[in-house]
């Protein structure tokens, strides 16, 4: 059930209305939200509800056992077992086919060809996100920064439908205390929530949907058939598409959660206005960035050791972050580009005072954006060869640019330009919308929905991050 469908609108409105019939955050409210979340998840593939339930049971059992345990060794063993179980499940679903085929080919090269079961494993939607959340919960309980939640609270936290399929990756200590509030009739930030949902729909349906069909898919599908101007438009177009797609999804998720009275952390903050790669990762998929920082980079040693060790930790974090997207060299290169530039930035800046001028900032933004675009080429291409073919066409690709139409240029410009709109302006517009009378708010929202329907392409593809 995509957020952009009528099915979801009906489902969500029904759940929302039902949720007001019971005391907010009480047991009946939680049971309703939990049941709704499993219905939402089953809509994708009911067979994986068992996996979500098993992950919930296993991690809650581990957290409770860790909290009860008196010896450090037992606590550590339980932690390792819980993490290993989560990562093994994730690894099986994400990488089994890749490793089995690689092993079969390697054995074949050695003359030891043996028929291996080459399963094409179906990836359960959202498995990365609920696995990461479960790991963070168990680790936080182990570290003593979070108390074990009640079983019902943890089940709601892991399965909560606004974030179960693609995040944001919310920490237990951010989410679960919100379930412990008592509110007979909560005051809802409805204006902001509706603004977020409408903005998210516009980003996903209009910007991402249009750019994908108009320029990105055709060029990345057959780069050799397109001119350098079209390739350049496709590269910029993809940068806007993936931002609009993922941040649009996130906006809708945050808006829906807000209507149910739950606040999610921000996940995007104008990433293409970043002045460095480090800055970019503070603004892009922020909840994953901090997860990687807290549960991978810092445990690896972070920046506490020598500059060489810090560089190693950065590269490892980014390469593993790349591999998380899938078992493909394209993702490794994507992670390598980010890791390499992060290391280079640290070395270049060490001991040098920054001269903050407008020109410097503009140049830094331009450079950062293009490094990110370079990495996106590998991220989007179906192979490293295709990515290099695209890069080659940027230099050698002559010919017309029939795909680069005025709407394509406007969409790219809008997608990048909006990153430079001050946050205060957006907040003021949202506040102004929230101050309208309910009837006017409804009217504006209706007009926006119709406008999005008119401007969007026929059919809307699933969100890009659903497959991670």
């Amino acid at each position: 059930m995509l957020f952009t469908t009528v099915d979801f609108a009906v489902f969500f409105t029904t759940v929302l209305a039902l949720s007001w019939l019971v005391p907010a955050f009480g047991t009946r409210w939680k049971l309703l939200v939990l049941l709704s979340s499993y219905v939402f998840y089953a809509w994708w593939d009911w067979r994986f509800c068992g996996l979500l339930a098993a992950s919930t049971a296993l991690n809650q059992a581990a957290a409770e056992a860790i909290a009860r345990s008196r010896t450090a060794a037992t606590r550590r063993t339980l932690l390792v077992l819980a993490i290993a179980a989560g990562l093994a499940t994730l690894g099986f679903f994400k990488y089994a086919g890749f490793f089995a085929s690689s092993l079969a080919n390697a054995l074949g090269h050695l003359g030891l060809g043996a028929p291996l079961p080459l399963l094409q494993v179906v990836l359960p939607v959202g498995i990365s996100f609920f696995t990461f959340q479960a790991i963070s919960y168990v680790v936080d309980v182990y570290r003593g920064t979070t108390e074990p939640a009640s079983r019902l609270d943890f089940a709601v936290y892991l399965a909560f439908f606004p974030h179960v399929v693609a995040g944001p990756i919310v920490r237990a200590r951010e989410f679960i205390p919100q379930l412990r509030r008592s509110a007979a009739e909560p005051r809802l930030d409805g204006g902001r929530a509706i603004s977020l949902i409408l903005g998210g729909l516009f980003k996903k349906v209009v910007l991402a949907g249009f750019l994908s069909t108009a320029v990105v898919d055709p060029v990345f599908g057959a780069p050799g058939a397109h001119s350098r101007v079209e390739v350049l438009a496709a590269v910029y177009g993809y940068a806007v598409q993936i931002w609009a797609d993922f941040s649009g999804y996130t906006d809708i998720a945050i808006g829906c959660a807000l209507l149910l009275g739950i606040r999610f952390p921000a996940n995007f903050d104008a990433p293409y206005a970043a002045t460095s790669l480090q800055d970019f990762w503070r603004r892009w998929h922020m909840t994953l960035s901090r997860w990687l920082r807290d549960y991978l980079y810092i445990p690896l040693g972070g920046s506490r050791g020598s500059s060489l060790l810090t560089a190693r930790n950065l590269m490892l974090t980014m390469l593993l972050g790349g591999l998380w997207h899938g078992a493909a060299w394209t993702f490794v290169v994507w992670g390598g580009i980010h890791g390499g530039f992060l290391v280079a930035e640290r070395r270049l800046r060490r001991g040098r005072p920054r001269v903050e001028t407008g020109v410097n900032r503009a140049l830094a933004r331009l450079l950062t954006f293009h490094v990110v675009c370079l990495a996106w080429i590998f991220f989007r291409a179906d192979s490293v060869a295709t990515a290099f073919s695209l890069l080659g066409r940027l230099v050698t690709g002559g010919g017309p640019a029939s795909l680069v139409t005025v709407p394509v240029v406007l969409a790219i410009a809008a997608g990048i330009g909006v990153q430079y709109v001050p946050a205060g302006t957006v907040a003021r517009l949202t506040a102004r919308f929230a101050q309208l009378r309910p009837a006017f708010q409804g009217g504006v929202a209706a007009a926006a929905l119709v406008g999005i329907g008119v401007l969007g392409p026929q059919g809307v593809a699933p969100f890009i991050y659903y497959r991670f």
Partner: protein
Amino acid sequence: MRPRQLLLVIVIALGLAALMDARSLERSAQTSPFGLRRSVELTVLRPLVTVSDHLALDRPRMALDALLHRSDDGGPAPPEPASLPPPQQVRVASSGLRLRLPATGEASPPPAAPRVRTAADPLRLWVGGDSVAGFLCYEMEAIAEHDPALAVRTHFQISTGLSRPDYYDWPAHLAQDTATGNPEVVVLLVGANDDQPLETPGGGVADFATPEWVTEYGRRAGALMDQVRREGRTVVWVGLPVMRAHDFGARMDVIDNAARRQAARRPGVLFLDSRPLFSDAGGAYAAYLPDDSGALTLMRAPDGVHLSPQGGTRLAEAVLRLIRDHSADPALALPRTGRAR
């Protein structure tokens, strides 16, 4: 904001949007598969359309559609049937067909002198279909990048087929597509979305896989083949690949067989059975198969329906082999078309 105020906002937003967009929603419901859900949606939407019309609430959407030259299904306006050139007026490939066809008939082109494919006079292909044809299209274009004697135009449209011309009219779109570029060979792969009831010419509805359904689907496939043949082009009708889910695969077999029978009756129509290309030694679905070098390669998309890029390459090469094998002109023999990945 209190819940009841929020509920008011949501009800007004969704209700007013539904009224303003009623025609589009109704059209969307009309083009959805026949069945209970469609009936319920239409029952709900028809009064909305009436109200919307009376209150002129549909005018803003219509004005926007007109401004953007869009049809109310969200896509570009399909060609008006009257604007399409009648088949007999479409220019037949000047060189005639150079393919040795399985049989000859009235519709077959006159024999012509062998022609050497060159960059100046390439073999012109049009390749298209539904989303399963996506990587066939992309990989055929990729092959053409390295073969100047091959000119390829492509068009695939997701969620389409022959079952719902009211949603997407392939005959009309194909006629429009092939009117430019003058392809000698039209390669079509459709069917994956066609396992649904069909409206028969008499106005009834034939349930999937019934004899009436097979007859009607065959009629539509045959008519599309005839349309292309009338324009003097060869048709390569690509059968659906074997599917991972057995029940879905069985449904696809019904569609494939209906199209295959029509192809067999028509000179100038080649049917490519793609199932062996994507099956293991036992004829079963296999996601990983040896490529040309013998390395196990992922040929299928994770959904077990669509192709991976490598699967697209395999299918594109098979299409070109089929064309080459049916060419009377040895000069048309295609060079090796594999692409390193």
